Structure formats: structure tokens, C-alpha cells
């Protein structure tokens, strides 16, 4: 097996070297341009509107994956109940902007409050669980996700239980009066977001903002502290990182991003019910992060798009065999993850740190290691200062 991958590697080496010379910013710019142009394909009649909806959902999952990546990829904490924070955001939005309580708060206030509520939920669940590690943390977060879902089902007065909340108002980016005063200006209708293309651009802007924020954070002191904690907690603490505080920050921030995504999801889907927040959804987001590459922002974005859009494409292609495909969807997910873990554990577009963690020896480091072993034998010279 390794012989085969070795041969493939040697054949593709020049190609990969050529790609490696292209600065990373170029790829980000190309990706962003593609994402911005995509809805125009619909305007020009190349793709159906259904694909715009796939696009919006993909972007929402990109945001979720980016959020989960903070705890899973950067800090190294497994969270199997992540979708609960998404639910907190979605329900906050649904309650503040629907006929349920006859409220229609301004968009920005709703999104901000949804984010904050999810962050508070993150803080509350973080307090008792952050002393746990590995398997135990996974079990407790899984339980947390289920508790939230069951609470939503049973808290009927608030959430309408299994029926969910319907008729969520579309977001207005300016006050009603301001929009009316603009009259028939062509762009004024964009201020009331109610068409798929408008949702698409709204969510895209939010995703870009989150991605920029996170990539700056990744290269900051905070990001370095997260990575250090993941690599060796005791050593990290010994250099003066306050482990509890840094971990809590990552949990709260990731919960906040999920809440933000939840708010946008509630607006977009118009109806929310507990069925959107099943354990399986948490698992899918975990898969997106693993597939794309833990700790890698471009990787996680790619992973989310692939796992969200691919099933839709297959479903379209399957045509008559549509229901057949639904049955096998999770099976295909499972196969993809198994194949990834065996052949490319670092993900599709790996973070450089994770690549070295998931392969015992990076081929490029091998020569340096040999050199070091040589030095070790030459112990006398080794400690010359």
C-alpha cells in the first residue's frame, strides 16, 4: 500500500511543487471569487434555484465547521454535542422574530443576542466539563447535545415542542421606515432578505468575516496557546498559559459561532424544529472538520462544502434511485471517513502542524532526523556551546 502511494507521490511531486509555489492568498481569492460568482450562474439560467439553496446550506455548514474547528482542531477537545449551540442560536432567533411571541426585533440585535446566548450556553457547559479529557469529554458533550434537544421537545410553551416554530420573519437589514422611504430604488429590495440569492450573499459575507477573524486569531498569541495546550498541556501550563481560561475561550468562541450560524439558519429556513438538531448533525460537522483537515481553515471550508454539496449532487444524479440513495448516505459518509483516516489522516487541505502530528515522520523531516541521529552518536560535539 505504501509502495503504491509512494509511486503516486513521486509522479505527482513536480505538480505539487508547482502548486506549492503559488502563494496561499491566491487560492483564498480564487475561492472567494468562485463563491461570489456562483449565484450569478442561477441568474444567467445555468443552474436551478435548488442549487442556490444547496449553496446557502453549504455556507452555513462552513460556518459551523469553522466554529467546531476552534475546539477540535486548534485546542484538541472533542465535542460531540456541537449542534446544541446551533440550536440555541436558531431558537433564540425564532422566538425573537416570529409570530410565536409576536416579536420582530431588528436583525443585528437578534443575531447578536443569538450569538451571546450560545456563548453563555458554552460557558455553562464548559465550567464542569473542561476538566475532562478525551473520551469523557466526548461522552459528556454528546449527552449535553441530547439534553438540549430533549428539552426543546418538552419545553412546549416556549418551543412548540416537536412541531417547531413556524413563520420566522425574513431579516430586514434596516428599519421598516428606512426601507419604505427608499421607495422603488432597485437595491432597496435587497434590504429585506427573502430570496435565496439574497440569503446566499448575506451568509457569504458573514462566513468571510468569521473566516478572517479566525485566521487572524490562529496566528495570534491565543491561537498559539491553544496549539500548545493541544500538544502538551503540562508544558503549556509551565510556560504560563492559564489552561482553564484558554480552553474556556475556545469553547465559548466556538459556541458563539455556532449560535451565529443558527440565527442565520433560522431566518433562512423560516421554520425550525428539533429534528434539525439531531446527534447525527453533530457527527456530520465533526466529519467535515476531519475530512477537510483539523486546524486548517481552508481545509475545513472545503470539507464542509464537499460533505454538504456532494450528497446533493449524487441525489440529483441518482434521479429515480433517489430514495435508494438516502438509505446509503450515512454509509457513504462512513466509508469516506474510514478511507481518509487510513490514507490521509491530516485531511484534504491539512494544517502544517497537524500533518506532522498525524504522520509519525514527515518525509521532508526524515533527512534532518537522520542528521540528528548522527549528531547523537557524535555526542561529544553535540553540546558544544
Amino acid at each position, binding site marked *: 500500500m505504501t509502495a503504491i502511494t509512494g509511486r503516486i507521490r513521486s509522479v505527482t511531486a513536480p505538480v505539487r511543487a508547482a502548486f506549492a509555489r503559488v502563494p496561499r492568498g491566491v487560492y483564498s481569492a480564487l475561492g472567494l471569487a468562485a463563491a461570489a460568482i456562483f449565484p450569478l450562474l442561477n441568474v444567467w439560467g445555468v443552474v436551478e434555484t435548488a442549487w442556490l439553496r444547496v449553496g446557502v446550506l453549504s455556507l452555513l455548514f462552513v460556518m459551523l465547521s469553522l466554529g467546531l474547528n476552534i475546539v477540535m482542531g486548534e485546542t484538541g477537545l472533542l465535542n460531540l454535542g456541537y449542534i446544541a449551540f446551533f440550536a440555541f442560536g436558531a431558537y433564540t432567533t425564532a422566538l425573537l422574530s416570529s409570530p410565536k411571541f409576536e416579536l420582530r426585533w431588528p436583525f443585528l440585535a437578534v443575531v447578536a443576542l443569538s450569538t451571546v446566548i450560545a456563548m453563555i450556553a458554552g460557558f455553562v457547559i464548559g465550567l464542569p466539563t473542561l476538566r475532562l479529557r478525551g473520551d469523557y469529554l466526548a461522552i459528556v458533550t454528546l449527552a449535553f447535545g441530547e439534553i438540549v434537544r430533549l428539552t426543546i421537545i418538552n419545553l412546549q410553551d416556549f418551543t412548540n415542542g416537536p412541531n417547531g416554530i413556524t413563520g420566522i420573519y425574513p431579516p430586514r437589514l434596516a428599519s421598516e421606515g428606512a426601507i419604505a422611504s427608499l421607495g422603488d430604488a432597485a437595491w432597496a429590495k435587497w434590504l429585506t432578505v427573502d430570496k435565496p440569492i439574497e440569503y446566499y450573499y448575506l451568509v457569504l459575507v458573514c462566513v468571510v468575516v468569521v473566516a478572517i477573524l479566525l485566521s487572524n486569531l490562529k496566528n495570534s*498569541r491565543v491561537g*498559539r*496557546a491553544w*496549539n*500548545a495546550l493541544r*500538544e*502538551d498541556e*503540562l*508544558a*503549556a*501550563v*509551565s*510556560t*504560563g*498559559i*492559564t489552561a482553564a481560561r484558554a480552553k474556556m475561550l475556545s469553547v465559548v468562541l466556538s459556541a458563539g459561532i455556532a449560535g451565529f450560524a443558527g440565527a442565520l439558519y433560522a431566518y433562512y429556513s423560516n421554520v425550525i424544529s428539533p429534528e434539525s438538531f439531531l446527534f447525527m448533525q453533530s457527527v456530520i460537522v465533526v466529519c467535515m472538520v476531519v475530512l477537510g483537515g483539523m486546524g486548517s481553515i481552508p481545509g475545513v471550508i472545503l470539507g464542509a462544502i464537499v460533505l454538504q454539496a456532494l450528497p446533493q449532487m449524487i441525489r440529483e444524479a441518482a434521479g429515480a434511485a433517489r430514495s435508494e440513495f438516502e438509505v446509503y448516505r450515512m454509509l457513504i459518509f462512513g466509508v469516506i471517513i474510514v478511507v481518509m483516516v487510513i490514507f490521509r489522516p491530516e485531511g484534504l487541505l491539512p494544517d502544517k*502542524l497537524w500533518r*506532522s*502530528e498525524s504522520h509519525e515522520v514527515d518525509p521532508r*523531516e526524515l533527512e*534532518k*532526523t537522520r542528521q*540528528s*541521529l548522527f*549528531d*547523537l552518536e557524535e*555526542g*561529544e560535539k*553535540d*553540546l*558544544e*556551546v
Partner: protein
Amino acid sequence: MASEQLKPLLEFRGVETYYGRIQILKGVDYRVNPGEIVCLLGGNASGKSTTMKTILGIVKPAKGEVLWEGEVINGLRTAERIKRGVATVPENRRLFPHLTVLENLEMGAYTRSDAAGVAEDLERVYGFFPKLAERRKQRAGTLSGGEQQMVAFGRALMSRPKLICMDEPSMGLSPALVDQNFDLIQQVNEQGVAVFVVEQNATAALSIADRGYVLQGGRVVIDGTAAELLENPELKRAYLGA
């Protein structure tokens, strides 16, 4: 000795610690004066590593006092202690293996916010260990044992410490490197940094130390100058193999 009159840098007064209900340290007293090398000897489960953790504030004493420059610091957080001048070279070095040498060194300066001072200290560390300058872009995990030891030292120096605590620095090093490792400790010490070193290798540790303590079952059973300890009949029998 002149150091007797100085205010101790670090002092333990009757410190007791517990893990749950199990008592580890049963009332220990240590003193480390500025610029001194003090070694702590003891077998397994004698409380050496717990002593280290108590100095760093990872373990808090249930009884007694830990003093830093005459001030009680029992409740002070690790980050605060590092800011005040405690640094550590943990057991087995505990580098961040996938970070580069430079990134590891930068982690040592995590609690500092003076970028200019950090850059200066980085140059100082590179001056001290030219090999690290050569390998600054290399992953720490791919270095030889001796080089990793340098990184661990360098990382500790990056917080500009007054005291470096070393937990079993010669563990995992080849015998040839052990001696050179102790030379390194002396060189660091000559820069005016006090060193508190926990060791099983009693002969080597006492050969560079000013004073030493012997810990057994959570209590200090022998203490004195290095010369006294080397002559102590009990210690000779137990550790020095004579």
C-alpha cells in the same frame, strides 16, 4: 557564605500537599538564595515532582507557606509566578514537538509583552546555543536529545527568570551528554540565574550544587552544603554507591 544574609529567592516553610486524601509533602522546608544552585535528591515517590509542581503553583499547598522574595505566594497563579521570575525545564523536557525551535522558544516568552526585550533575549539564547540558531526552523521533535535539552533550557531562559527549576534534567540523555548537561547548568548559573535541580544522579548533581536536600517519603531527611552531603555516610550508602 555571603548568601546566608541575602533574602532567599524561594522559600518553603512547612509545606504540606495532598492529592485527594493522599499526603505527598509532609511539612518540608527549602531555601534557594539568589544565584545559587540547589539540588533536591530523592528516590521515586519521595515528592520531588510534587515539589516542582508546588513551586510552579500547579499544586497548591494545604498547609505551610511558599515564599517568593519574602512574599507568600501560596495562591498565586502559574502565569503570575512565571512573570515574577520562575521558569522550568520539565521532566523529559516536554517540548512542543511539532512546533519549530523558534516557536518553542517564543512559547517561553508567552507571559511577556515587551517585544523588543523578547527579541533581545532570543538573540541571547542563540548566542548561548549557536546550534539552535542554525536549527530555528526545524521541528523540535526531530532534534537530538542534547539539542532538545538546549531548547528546553532556551525556552526557560526566554521568560528572563531569576530561578530555573529543573526536573530530572539528565533523564533520557546518554551518559556522555549527562556531564555536558551539568556544564550547561553551570553556565546558565554563571549568568546569575539560580537553579533548583531535582535529580536522581546524586554525584553529578552535587558536583555542581552549592547546597542540597534529600527528600524521603515527603520529608527532608538530610540537608546541608554539597560538600557535607557528599561526605554524609547515609547518603553515600543510599545514593552514591560507596
